[in-house]
């Protein structure tokens, strides 16, 4: 894979995702803060669209995202508040799902670092408690993969290949 996505645990209640992009960070930042751009990529599993993407990107402003599975009409919504807005390098938001399966909300920090025209994205999700983070990881929803799982993927892939 050209740009590997890593997802790791950090401390006792953070999850950290990192990935590199072949673009200046201003563009990556735009893609996270302009609704018409966000709804083009932040879609989740195949078959889901993003009919609601309201974002008032300023400190204290709110955002509201709703995804819909077109085949059966089921919806999933979430939203929160912008805590820090520092274009084009940093965005801190709260996040809470409508039907949250873990206690409290998470505090998400997006950091963009540019080097030689490329951008490294780091997204940290801080949960209310270690238990909340575990619930996220075990839930089968989007965000959790342990640090060790990540290193493991190679071993697993090699093992599976050897067994065939």
């Amino acid at each position, binding site marked *: *894979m050209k*740009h590997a*996505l890593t*997802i790791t645990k950090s401390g006792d209640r953070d999850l950290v*995702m990192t*990935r590199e*992009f*072949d*673009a*200046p960070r201003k*563009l*990556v930042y*735009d*893609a996270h803060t302009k609704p018409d*751009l966000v709804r*083009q*990529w*932040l*879609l*989740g*599993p*195949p078959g889901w669209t993003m009919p609601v993407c309201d974002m008032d990107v300023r400190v204290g402003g709110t955002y509201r995202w709703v995804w819909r599975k077109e085949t059966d009409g089921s919806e999933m919504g979430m939203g929160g508040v912008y805590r820090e807005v520092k274009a084009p390098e940093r965005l801190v938001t709260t996040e809470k799902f409508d039907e949250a399966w873990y206690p409290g909300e998470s505090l998400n920090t997006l950091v963009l670092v540019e080097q030689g025209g490329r951008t490294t994205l780091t997204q940290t999700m801080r949960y209310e408690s270690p238990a909340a983070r575990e619930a996220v990881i*075990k839930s*089968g929803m*989007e*965000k*959790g*993969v*342990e640090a*060790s*799982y990540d*290193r*493991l*993927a190679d*071993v*697993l*892939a*090699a*093992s*599976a290949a*050897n*067994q065939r």
Partner: protein
Amino acid sequence: MQATHRLDAVFAALADPTRRAIIARLASGQASVMELAEPFAMSQPAISKHLKVLERAGLISRGREAQRRPRRLEAKRLEDADKWLERYRKLWEANYQRLDTLLEQLKTQEKERKSR
């Protein structure tokens, strides 16, 4: 055991570097406890403990050969664990691959704007 509990056991078993090395070794063929202990600066009892954890998680099993009782990998269980973690990764990878495409479009637009 419930599916999620079983996966917990699998991931807990795989969280240890020695146990991952054992799995990697078994991927190339079955081996006795003695053979498995060789590459590690560890006693056979210490290795046996690791093997028990892997066995309980269903990741390895024992062969029937007398004396030697070689351990072998249970590939099916590994693939289950692999699938589980792949779900998370795929979801975000799909998002970020769409973002890659979008960024390429934005870069092109910027260039066109600047050259005007």
